[in-house]
């Protein structure tokens, strides 16, 4: 990046910088009322200023926390910055969380101020008000339906802005001085990690750490203010936050907020982001859609598609990495680009993507290659909330499906004997909020952060992650058992949505399978297989066979890796319901809570190991509309073929 940002050590300072350097460049676009309403940096800064002054007028002071709960909206981001202008700390909360889950953060940080997007969020906050006596001010952005709310804590953001403008007119200098007081070492934001263990922790990040990492990555990818990002994931998730807050503040690029959840795809097609981020599940869902829609295409189209995807699979990756391929292949790829890949990127909204990241969990090699082969520069990165995301990133030209790339500038890696990955980096978090023991447990005296991930660095200096250290268990016979590793391998099959593998301390490995309703449903229709619903379909023998084939394929792979050949899956069952975050079976970032699931479905587990063929299950389910009901079903249990371990080859 050309421009000099030295001395700009906080986000508010960066904001002021942009209002000077590029006042009329777009900072945020929001699809609203049918068009992309555009906020220039100048206008955005004014909004921030008004909100900040308003908050100050209501007594918000240095070190105070501002809870922010809402979808990606200009005001939501403006509010984050407003809090930071006053030396406060923004605490974004998941807008899709149920009221109960919001209580902890607010209590934990004794939060007094909150900004809520709309009626829905306000209702949740009001619901937990009794448990959170500190919460004294709730500002709502969208006034729709709020007319008859008379709680004293409530006020509309418009009103707040008004108040802010007045106090700004009274004392124009105030905010400038407040901003000037801020330094890089101040806390900028606090992110609550739902954590696979279930206990949420508030990760405290300073301006410096966030800005430093954002900049390092931006420099590495050569991001400029011409780039465009679609902000469609929860702002409360560091992943989204770094791309739609930290990095735009560093580079001055523009973020775009979709109109609503159901229009994300078309809005993405509109915008055509140049810089894209999505967890593997999103890419997976997209690919599933692609293949399903292609199924309905005419025979000619299908064969064209198949032929050129084959070409892409062969040479697409190489061409993207700039390696040399045969002239003929290159020509065919060009052709394919004109009539398949290009249009495909267009309908996916990825025509303009220069850099696409995926992270959060392992991505299926086929899935990964697919996107790269059609010319989308998809790369893996490794990081976590505690590290301000950027730890390892795959540089252009050296991308591998099974690693997450070398360490980003400024990051040191190291490993414990148990293969646990340790990290030291400017991006490291300050502490877990009001949780010294947890902080101590994960951050040692030398400043190494214990990631809890097990992995190693391969020959080319790329980091490879196998699993969570604590999950890496041992089978009864003492051989290595890496459930996550198995589960990921399983999830790479389109028919399998989630998988939970068990085996620690047991004699053999068994698994719960969650079928992918969309894919399997389609598969069933293609075969003219009638089914009444999820439970019915999940219990079909045909489906069991389908899943068994997948499992056996995995077993073949495992057999090839002596260290974990013992972890071949011997028995499995297909769950009667989808694992759901609302039922506490997944984290908000949709990671499986293995222990919790194990306890919740203990009967099933016993049946698996007890050698039963069928097990009856009664379960509570929560429907979309909040009602709960119970379903009962008889789940079959099946065995899967296992294979003798191939001797010799070293484990990957």
């Amino acid at each position, binding site marked *: 990046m050309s421009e000099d940002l030295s001395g700009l050590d906080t986000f508010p300072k960066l904001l002021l910088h942009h209002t000077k350097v590029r006042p009329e460049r777009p900072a945020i676009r929001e699809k609203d009322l049918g*068009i992309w309403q555009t906020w220039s940096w100048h206008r955005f800064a004014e909004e921030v200023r008004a909100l900040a002054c308003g908050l100050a007028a209501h007594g918000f002071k240095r070190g105070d926390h501002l809870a922010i709960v809402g979808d990606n909206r200009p005001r939501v981001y403006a509010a984050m910055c407003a809090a930071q202008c006053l030396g406060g700390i923004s605490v974004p909360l998941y807008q899709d969380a149920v009221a109960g889950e919001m209580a902890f953060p607010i209590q934990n940080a004794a939060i007094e101020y909150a900004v809520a997007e709309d009626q829905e969020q306000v209702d949740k906050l009001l619901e937990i008000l009794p448990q959170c006596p500190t919460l004294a001010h709730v500002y709502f952005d969208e006034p729709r339906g709020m007319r008859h709310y008379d709680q004293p804590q409530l006020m509309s953001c418009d009103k707040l802005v008004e108040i802010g403008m007045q106090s700004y007119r009274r004392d124009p200098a105030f905010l400038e001085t407040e901003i000037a007081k801020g330094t890089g070492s101040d806390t900028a934001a606090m992110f609550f990690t739902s954590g696979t263990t279930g206990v949420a922790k508030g990760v405290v990040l300073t301006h410096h750490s966030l800005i430093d990492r954002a900049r390092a990555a931006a420099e590495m990818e050569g991001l400029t203010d011409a780039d465009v990002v679609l902000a469609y994931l929860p702002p409360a998730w560091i992943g989204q936050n770094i791309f739609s807050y930290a990095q735009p503040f560093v580079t001055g690029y523009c973020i775009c907020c979709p109109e609503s959840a159901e229009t994300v795809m078309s809005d993405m097609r509109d915008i055509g982001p140049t810089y894209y981020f999505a967890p593997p599940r999103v890419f997976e869902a997209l690919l599933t859609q692609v293949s399903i829609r292609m199924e309905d295409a005419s025979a000619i189209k299908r064969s064209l598609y198949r032929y050129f995807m084959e070409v892409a699979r062969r040479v697409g990756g190489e061409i993207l990495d700039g390696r040399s391929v045969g002239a003929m292949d290159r020509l065919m790829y060009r052709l394919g680009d004109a009539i398949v890949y290009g249009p495909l990127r*267009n309908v996916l909204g990825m025509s303009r993507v220069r850099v696409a990241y995926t992270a959060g969990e392992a991505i299926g090699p086929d899935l990964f290659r697919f996107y790269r082969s059609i010319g989308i520069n998809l790369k893996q990165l490794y990081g976590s909330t505690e590290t301000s995301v950027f730890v390892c990133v795959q540089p252009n030209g050296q991308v591998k499906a099974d690693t997450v790339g070398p360490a980003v500038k400024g990051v040191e890696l190291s490993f414990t004997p148990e293969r646990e990955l340790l990290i030291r980096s400017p991006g490291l978090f300050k502490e877990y909020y009001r949780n010294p023991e947890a902080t101590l447990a994960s951050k040692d005296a030398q400043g190494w952060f214990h990631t809890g991930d097990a992995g190693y660095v391969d020959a080319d200096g790329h980091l490879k992650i196998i699993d969570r250290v604590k999950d890496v268990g041992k089978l009864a016979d003492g051989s290595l058992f890496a459930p996550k590793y198995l589960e990921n391998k399983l999830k790479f099959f389109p028919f399998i949505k989630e998988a939970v593998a068990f085996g620690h301390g047991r004699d053999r490995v068994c698994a719960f399978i969650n079928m992918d309703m969309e894919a399997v449903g389609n598969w069933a229709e293609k075969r003219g297989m009638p089914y009444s619903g999820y439970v019915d379909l999940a219990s079909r023998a045909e489906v069991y066979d389908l899943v068994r084939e997948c499992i056996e394929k995995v077993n073949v792979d495992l057999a090839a890796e002596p260290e974990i050949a013992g972890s071949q899956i011997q028995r499995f069952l297909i769950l009667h319901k989808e694992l759901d975050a609302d039922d506490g079976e997944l984290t908000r970032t949709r990671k499986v809570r293995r222990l919790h699931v194990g306890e919740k479905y203990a009967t099933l587990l016993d049946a698996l190991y007890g050698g039963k063929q069928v097990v009856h299950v009664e379960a509570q389910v929560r429907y979309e509309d909040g009602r709960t009901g119970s379903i009962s079903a008889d789940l079959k249990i099946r065995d899967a073929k296992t294979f003798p371990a191939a001797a010799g080859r070293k484990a990957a």
Partner: protein
Amino acid sequence: MFYRENGQFKSTYASDQQMLPILQDRIFMAALLVFAFGAVPFVVSDYLFLSLVIPFLILALAAIGLNLLVGYCGQISIGHAAFMAVGAYAAYNIALRIPQLNFLVVLVLAGLIAAAVGVLFGVPSLRIKGLYLAVATLAAQFFTDWLFARVKWFTNYAHSGSVQTAPIEMLGWKIDAPVEKYLFLLGVLVVFTLIAKNLVRSHIGREWMAMRDMDVAAEVIGIRPVYAKLTAFAISSFYCGVAGALWGFVHLGSWEPLAFNLTLSLNLLFMIIIGGMGSLLGSYIGAAFIVILPILLNQAPQWLGMRVSTAMTSHLELMIFGALIIFFLIVEPLGLARLWAVGKEKLRLWPFPH
């Protein structure tokens, strides 16, 4: 397939409501115009101009006129050649009696007169619908047929009853050579198409379509049927009037009273059925179709080395027209334009089917 729409987002209503919101469409249209104005004059022979291109352009204009009434406002008319006749004779008489008048002015005046007559015969549409209206418009047809055949004043007492026009000349430009005629007509057509497009996407256009789709609902939301229907008649007749004048002056040069008879009216109707009701593009396609088909029918046998009498070809023509009408009404009531639209959608979604 050729569409790359990423990044073509709209941040103002003006840009969202523009005629061709998609860049690729704008490029295509520009190329088309360049081709029509720049290349065609050099590649097309005079014969083709006279026998094909010029009639096509004029009929397309008339078809647009009829489409505005039938396709957009849903008021059927089987007598639209009548308004072409009015336009033609009006232009003839104006040019005859005020020679120094610029031809464009003559055109507009002729159009206005046709519009007035159109409104007159449109009045019944306020009381009656569909089939009844069809008959009312037939009345216009037969009356004008008679009027221009019998009232000598209109034909300036030419005893043959047929009229002769002087070649057009305006601002020193003598429009004589086929190419000149072509360029002149093309210019006129482009302008009128643009205007029509603007009308149908403005509120007058929405009022027409509302009338067409559900007249009771339309009135209930405050649309005045009188206004909507009569404007449709007026503008439609205006277009046909201008087309008629051009047909007479540019294409025919001299014509008999029955040059604008029922057959022409029906042909116009077929153009918009085959081309596509409620589509300007359809008007073009339909016109092209109706112009080309007879010529094909005349040529085809020779290519196949068959000997077919002219009478026979004219009968075949009737049969094929008839069959096609029925075919389109059954298979694709929205005409060829619809197929085009579907194709375009497919290209945008390529490689997906939907």
